């Protein structure tokens, strides 16, 4: 177990550093399984991906071993989706994530470590289609 200060110190070196680019196709079968899982029967999702689908295409948080040395578990604090263009079935989407901030806060059961992630999603025409932010919490 490491202290929050040590974890923050190590994680801060990752701020602004892009993770690896991942390119994946938006497959009809994957979108179908996703909309079945969320229980959204809108026929629009036979052509287009629903608003939160991109998180299934590439993880919104980078795997950070340094953070996992702190606390006992992860919690998701929140997400923000900005949509710039529709994501259609058949698109090839490239995602690139980064850490944008790391800080700690005192909670009711001790200190909690907050890591803010941001992922940009670009389609095969080079258009930025969405930006997704996530707040990952270690406690």
């Amino acid at each position, binding site marked *: 177990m490491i202290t929050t200060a040590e974890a923050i110190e190590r994680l801060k070196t990752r701020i602004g550093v892009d993770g690896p680019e991942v390119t994946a196709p938006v497959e009809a079968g994957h979108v179908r399984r996703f909309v*079945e899982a*969320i229980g959204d029967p809108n026929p629009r999702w036979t052509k287009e991906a*629903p*608003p939160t689908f991109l*998180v*299934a295409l590439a993880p919104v948080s980078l795997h950070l071993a340094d953070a996992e040395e702190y606390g*006992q578990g992860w919690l998701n604090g929140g*997400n923000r*989706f900005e949509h710039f263009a529709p994501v259609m079935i058949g698109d090839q989407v490239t995602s690139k994530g980064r850490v944008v901030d790391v800080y700690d806060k005192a909670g009711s059961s001790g200190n909690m470590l907050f890591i803010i992630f941001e992922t940009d999603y670009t389609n095969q025409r080079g258009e930025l289609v969405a930006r997704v932010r996530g707040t990952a919490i270690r406690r």
Partner: protein
Amino acid sequence: MKLQVGQEIPELVKHPTTRQLVQYAGAQGDFYEIHYDQPYAKSVGLPGVILHGLLKAAFLGQLVTDWLGDRGTLKTFEVSYRGVDMPGNPYRCRGRVTRVDGGDVELEVWGEDESGKRTTVGTATVYMRS
């Protein structure tokens, strides 16, 4: 139909089950054990398996896109997870218009547990074609 600030949009009530959490874990590729392994969830201090935050976000996304239909597009959508929710309990998604500026419309959206506690709160901005 003219939109009024303060107007509520039609609610959406979901009935998440443990089965749905497993389905969602597979579809999203999030295999964190707190969403399907009861002993593991309890070992990290949770009351049992809990809904994925992103599943609750998807429910609220559906709330907005069901209401919007083909009248416009969802531009931004932001949610904070304020409490844990367990499968087996209904999850009530609601929303209210907070700002109308031409085609730009802002909504407050939230998800309530059975006791009416808002365990997910957020905002959505949409652009409505005239």
